[in-house]
């Protein structure tokens, strides 16, 4: 297996405060890694830093994507290299239609015709995220990612704020993104997933788990074991 992502001794600030305090982590090609951690531990900051959002400022360390140093690259350069992100709270963009963004970014132009499968048929003409419910935001993010066809996906709590009925649709769409539809079982897109409940793992499984606390990776291991342990003992020692 080749390395898809390597984070080396990464320190980063957000809002003038150091949040990431020397993170080390790898994701291999075709691998799904899960990131656990208490609120405020730096998980979302790590994903935003990998995507290159300017709210996060790298002060030390490196981000390597397929062996290439992307630490200083802009968000769009990273996207064009094959990184995609499902945000937890994406911004509202007044005046820009969801369908227009999907069309403009689509490698997979057939996706527009599949919007109804995401229960978004009537949303293509709506301003992006404006007045969307929690579940609608998740489905909109997944539609965009399906059009974008990234090789590596950052998923920030894909199941949070979603009702029980919608979680099945979202879980299946995330699965479609990660698994090769031809083989059905072979994972062809790598991912790094933040989850609190572990529900999403019922759909996509996971190969490796990381536990983040106070801006560093504290533990690594089998994701199911880590989750069981967290459920029993919390994030204490």
């Amino acid at each position: 297996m080749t390395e898809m992502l390597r984070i080396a001794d990464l320190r980063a600030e957000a809002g003038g405060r150091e949040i990431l305090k020397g993170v080390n982590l790898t994701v291999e090609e075709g691998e799904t890694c899960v990131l656990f951690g208490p609120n405020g531990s730096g998980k979302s900051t790590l994903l935003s830093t990998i995507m290159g959002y300017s709210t996060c400022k790298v002060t030390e360390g490196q981000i390597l994507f397929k062996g290439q140093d992307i630490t200083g690259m802009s968000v769009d350069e990273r996207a064009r290299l094959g990184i995609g992100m499902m945000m937890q709270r994406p911004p509202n963009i007044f005046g820009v239609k969801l369908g227009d963004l999907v069309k403009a970014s689509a490698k997979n132009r057939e996706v527009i015709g599949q919007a109804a499968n995401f229960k978004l048929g009537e949303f293509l003409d709506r301003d992006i995220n404006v007045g969307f419910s929690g579940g609608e935001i998740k489905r909109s993010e997944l539609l965009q990612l399906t059009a974008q066809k990234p090789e590596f996906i950052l998923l920030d709590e894909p199941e949070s704020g979603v009702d029980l009925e919608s979680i099945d649709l979202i879980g299946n769409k995330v699965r479609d993104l990660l698994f090769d539809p031809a083989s059905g079982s072979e994972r062809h897109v790598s991912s790094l997933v933040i989850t609190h409940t572990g529900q999403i793992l019922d759909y996509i499984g996971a190969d490796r788990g990381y536990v983040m606390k106070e801006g560093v990776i504290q533990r690594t291991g089998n994701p199911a074991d880590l989750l069981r342990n967290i459920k029993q003992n919390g994030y204490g020692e």
Partner: protein
Amino acid sequence: MPGRDSSVKEALNKKGAYGKDIDLERYEEGSKDADQVADLESSEYRRYMENVGVVADEMARSGSLMFIDNGMSHCSPRIQEGLEVMSVSEALRKHDGLKDFMWNAMDPAKDKYTAKTYLEDGDGFFVRVKSGYHIKSPMQSCMLLKTNRTVQNVHNIIIVEDGASLEMITGCTSTRHANDSLHVGVTEMYIGDNANLTYSMVHSWGDKTNVRPRTKTVVGRNSNYVNNYILLNPVESIQSFPAADLAEGASTTYNTVCLAHAGSDIDTGGMVSLNGPGSRAEIMSRSISMGGKMCARGRLVGNSPGAKAHLECRSIILKDGGSTLAIPELEAHVADVEMTHEAAVGKIARDQIEYIMSRGLDEDQAVSMIVKGFLSGSINGLPESLQKDLDAAIEQANLGS
């Protein structure tokens, strides 16, 4: 009216309430003896007209009017039943009662620009929709400035009688030879009861052109008036503050979309007096400074119980060197009114740009997409053809950062 004449003469020295003062002496009076344009499609002015939403083939229009400098050059024969279209001078000969509408809504002594138009006896277009008629296709008019260093003083009258409706598109523009000129368009609109008028104005001028439109609309009971204003090209200065008086149950919407290019000084908006019980108004402004000066004004005056109104000014600064100023004013004279406003001025939020960039579009493409959405999505109910023109013009306006 000798008394009025003398007060209007005095007003020749009265500066406009807003905007930089224009020295009227710099300009010759534009000719009233205009070239006649028999066919808009073969006209040498076609591209100028089409640039401001006036279509040459007239197929989707209920009628067309064109003024070149101060004279009428074209009046479409394709007139529909219930619709009357001609020059004001001809209408005055035909209709005795029209003189009661002349300078009724608009005070000719308002400022030097109205005074000049009054004293020069400015001609203009007369459009009347008879009671009960609904004109299906939009009526269109074009005000073209052709001669350099001249002033265009036109005085238009629109009357939509009880139970009637009309959509009207007016394109105002100057040829490249008439860059250094002044446009003064006085328009008085009278909407009867239970009637509708949508009036969309598209401007495109030279970068040395000064523009001082003066517009007043009287909206009758339970009627609706929509005023759309679009300016996307450079201009030296525009100052315009159209006003409407609403009767009981009447409603109005003012939509303004402006791009202030470097060197442009734009001061525009709208004022609505909610005089009738239950009247409603909405003033919406979307503007972008690309290095020019942009002032968006809105004034709502609540004079009657049950009046409800909202005012929204949003402005983006895309390039340094200019300025934007939003001036929302709410004035109430009775207790039972509900008037609100919101104003936002600033750059595009970084998180919005980066969100679009995260889908693989570069920064210029992301900014352009947001700005186009900000402008083109801002006017509801724009005639379809005009919406297409607006989208195309925004597309060509090089709105990347």
